[in-house]
Every structure is written in structure tokens, then in C-alpha cells.
């Protein structure tokens, strides 16, 4: 037998407003107090579920960060002894495995939070990989450019998977770039740059960040969009 709160949840999922639900249930003979209690029960259940979801989210994200830190510390400790091919392979394999696990867990096995944490781990390995490869092959460039590449890669993955934590990571990386680059601009020696690549990379990042902002904006629910 369905309870009143179940019925309210069903009506809400069909897009009915609170007022419409009240009218419908009053017509069916329910009292105002019962309906209010039904709404309150949904709220309490939602709060409980949300806090549980948040806790799981926090735990798996911390897990991803710890595993990422462990991988980097292992690579750093054994870096000198490894061949270049082995180094690149480790980075690539770790990244591909993390992303694949993330995708499988989210899309196939319905573990959204844990899968998301694997995707986050993949993005961390990707970012670390950029700097490790740059160091390995002595690539000449400004350090904030590495963060731009990291941000762009993370954004691609964020749009592909729709995992919001990846958007957050991209935002943090973006802020590191805009804080770091001015130091290079105002303190760098004249001519200490490589064929304007830094500036063009910045230009590309500017355009991509704008397009990303606009794309996310298009997803704002229509009732909220009316207010903006």
C-alpha cells in the first residue's frame, strides 16, 4: 500500500507544483495536516539520503586522492632506475585503467560515486603525466602551460562523463593558471618564451573556458533560467 509521501513523490516526479499537489490531494479527501506531514517526511528522507551520498562522495574522492599520491610517490622514488618507455607506459596504463574502471563502474555496474572517483583519479594521473613527460623529454615551456593542458584534458573528460567533480577540478586548475601566468609575464626575462606558444595556448584556453561556461549555462533548469 502506497503512503501519502510516496504519492507526493510520484506527483513531484511528474513535474506537478506544490500547489497543484495540495489541490489534488485535498480533493481526494486528505487533510492539510496530513499533506504537510507527507511533504515533511519526503524532506527528511531526502536530507538523510543527501547526507549519505555526500559522505560516500567524500570517502571515494579522498580514496582517489590517496591512490594518486601513492602512484606519484612510487614513480618519484623509482624514477631514476626506470627506462623512458617504462615510465611512459606506467603513466598511460594507469590512466587508461582508471578511466576504464570509472566508466565501467558508472555506466555498467551503477556505482556512480566510486566510478566518479576513478575518473577523478584518471584525471590526476593525466595531469601528473603531463609534468613527468615534460621533465623526461626536457620540454621547454612555462609551468602554468602544463596546468592549461591538464585543465583542457579534464574538461573534455568532464563533458564526456558529466561528472561534476571533474568540472570542479578543471576550475581549480584554471585558477592556478591565472595566478601563475602573471608571474611569468611580469617577471620573465624578455624573449624568454618559445615561439609565442604560451600566449596561443592561453588564447585557446580562453575560448574553451568561455564555450564551457556557456555550455553549462544552457543546462540551467528552465524555471531558474527565467530569473537570470
Amino acid at each position, binding site marked *: 500500500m502506497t503512503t501519502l509521501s510516496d504519492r507526493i513523490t510520484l506527483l513531484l516526479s511528474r513535474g506537478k507544483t506544490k500547489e497543484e499537489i495540495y489541490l489534488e490531494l485535498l480533493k481526494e479527501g486528505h487533510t492539510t495536516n496530513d499533506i504537510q506531514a507527507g511533504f515533511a517526511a519526503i524532506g527528511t528522507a531526502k536530507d538523510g539520503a543527501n547526507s549519505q551520498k555526500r559522505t560516500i562522495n567524500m570517502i571515494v574522492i579522498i580514496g582517489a586522492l590517496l591512490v594518486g599520491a601513492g602512484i606519484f610517490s612510487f614513480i618519484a622514488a623509482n624514477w631514476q632506475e626506470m627506462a623512458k618507455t617504462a615510465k611512459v607506459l606506467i603513466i598511460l596504463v594507469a590512466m587508461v585503467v582508471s578511466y576504464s574502471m570509472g566508466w565501467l563502474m558508472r555506466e555498467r555496474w551503477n556505482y556512480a560515486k566510486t566510478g566518479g572517483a576513478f575518473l577523478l583519479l584518471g584525471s590526476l594521473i593525466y595531469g601528473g603525466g603531463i609534468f613527468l613527460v615534460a621533465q623526461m623529454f626536457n620540454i621547454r615551456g612555462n609551468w602554468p602551460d602544463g596546468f592549461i593542458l591538464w585543465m583542457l584534458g579534464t574538461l573534455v573528460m568532464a563533458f564526456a562523463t558529466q561528472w561534476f567533480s571533474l568540472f570542479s577540478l578543471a576550475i581549480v586548475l584554471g585558477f592556478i593558471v591565472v595566478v601563475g601566468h602573471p608571474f611569468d*609575464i611580469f617577471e620573465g626575462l*624578455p624573449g624568454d618564451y618559445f615561439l609565442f606558444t604560451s600566449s596561443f595556448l592561453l588564447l585557446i584556453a580562453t575560448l574553451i*573556458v568561455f564555450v564551457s561556461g556557456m555550455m553549462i549555462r544552457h543546462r540551467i533548469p528552465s524555471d531558474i533560467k527565467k530569473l537570470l
Partner: protein
Amino acid sequence: MEYLFFSYLLWPLLIIGIIGFFIVRALRHHGGAKSGSWYEQTFLSKENFASELFLLLFLFFMAVTLQAFNRDFHEPFAWETLILVSSLIGLGLAYWLRLTLTFTFSIFGLLTWWTVKMVYWLDLPGASIGGAPIVVGFVVIFLILYALGRLHEHEFPQQRFAPIYEFLGLISTIILLMIFSSQWGLETISSLTKDSTILSVWQIGVMLTVLFVSLIIIAAYALLKRALSLGELVSMAVLVVVFGSMLVIGQQDVFVNGSYPRSLTAQGIVWAIVFNGLAFFELLGLMLLGYKRKEPRIVNIGSLFLFILIFVKYFDWFFTFLDKSLFFISAGILFFAIGWLMERGRKYMLATMQKL
């Protein structure tokens, strides 16, 4: 040079203030105590928040990219000009898409450009005027922001900008008044004022004229639209006259030379009374305005800063004068009394406002 200090001091204060503003609003929103009006909520959804952050990043990236290309081409433009260009684009984008974060930082960008330009003009060879034009300019700009905030309150959908304009204008003016009512602030008046006229640097004269005219037009329009009350207009006029007088009053000697403890001259006493009185009455007026307009936000700002003012004044006036143990005991008792009185007053005001 004190004016340089002012230009550097204001940014951290403003940035801390605005970050505090967004955090408090976000916490209030998160805690479920949603504001009465939709436009007073910081972000309306997760997507709104993320897109705001990305478009703010776009503003920063654009500014950095312009600076990077400027460096690559051996700096054909001054860096502050590029900040101005980025800020204007940011402001346009903010109005187009109603972006609160981009809007706030674009205003900061414009203020940065203005300050850098003023400092540059004050340092021109032959310009022997004090830093008063910067302080006066700041006051006029803050009042313009406040008036714009009042005007935006009734204009859908730009209402989202109203609290930001008002907050920037109000808090900055209060901070300036508090600085000038302190001993350190009074000391700076001597170096801010000089006998030579500000017209010796025409750029500063033009800039200040533009600001004054803009303030008059905006305030008059706001009054016509009933967005500003007569009381607010009078308070704004008093602030402009008091600060503006620094431009024409000539060199001021606020403290007696070589005196210890520092004693005020006759001019100094007048300035001390004026600024302390202004700070106190502005805060009191603010609380009354909030009460009259039924805006708890304004009452809260007024009561918070009144508390800070009393705290600062107590230290400013009695720290060297009283025995330390007596000083701290008196401070404790004073704070209990003020806290109790303010809580009572605030509760009364908010309760009456709800009844009305």
C-alpha cells in the same frame, strides 16, 4: 606616500569583504534560511554556480592572454589599459548574462585601472598635490556604486547586481570613515592635503569632474525614481562635502609637531570631531534606514560596524591612557553591555519590521 598606502590597502580589504559576502550568503543559502528575494541568493543552481565560475575564469584568462601577447609584442599598451579593456568586456558580459562573480571582479578591474591612473598622474613631474584626489575619488565612486545599487533594486533582471553594488559602496565608505576617524587616519590628512591646487594636473581635474557630475546625475535620477530617500541623499551630500573639502582647504596640520603623546592642533580637533561624528552617525543612520525600509541586511551591516567602531575607539582612546588590568576589565564589561544592548535593539527592530 600615504595615498599609495590607501591604494594598496583598499584592495585586500575589499577583496576580503567581497569573499566574506559571498561565503556568508552561500552559507545562509546552504543552511536553508533562504533570503526573501530570489536575486539576493548567490547562486540559483549547481549549473548556475559552475557556469559563473567558468565565465569568471574566462575573464581572468582573457586578461592574462592580453598581457601575454602584449609582452610578446614588446608592450605596445600599458598593462592597466589591458585591465580596463578586460574589465569593460567582463562588465558587458556580466550584464548580458547576469553574472554576479564576473560583475564583481570587473568592478575591481575598473577600480584598479582608476587607481593606477591616479597614482601615475599624481607622480607626474611638477605635480606637487597631495593624495586627497584619490581619497575623494574613492568616496565619490563608492557613493555612485551605492546609488546604482538602489536603482538596480527595481529593475528586473538586473536586480542580481543590486546587493553587490550596495555592499561595495556601503562597506567601502564605512571602512574609509573608520580609517579617517582613527589617529593614524587623522595623521594622513596632513600629507593628503597640499596648498597647490588640483588643477595643476588637468587629468585629475577632468577625472574628478566626470565623477562628480556622474554622481549628481545618478543620485538625481535615483531620487526621481524614489530609489533613494531624501535622508540618503543628504548623507551622501555631507560625505562628498566633507571629503571634497580636502581638495580646496589647503595644507592641514593635524598634530602638534614633536609632541608626545601626540596632541591635536585646533584644525586636528575639528577633523577628529567631524570624522568620528560622521562614522557614528552614518552607522546609526544606516540602522534606521534598514528599519524604515524593512531591510534586515542593512540593519545587520549597521549594527556589526557600530560594534567594530566602538571596539576600535575604545582601543584608540584608552589603551595608553588606562592601567592595563583596568583597561581589559572595563573592555569586558563594556562589551557585555554593548552586546546586550545591541542584541536587544536588533531584536526589537527586526520584530517590529516583521509586524509592519
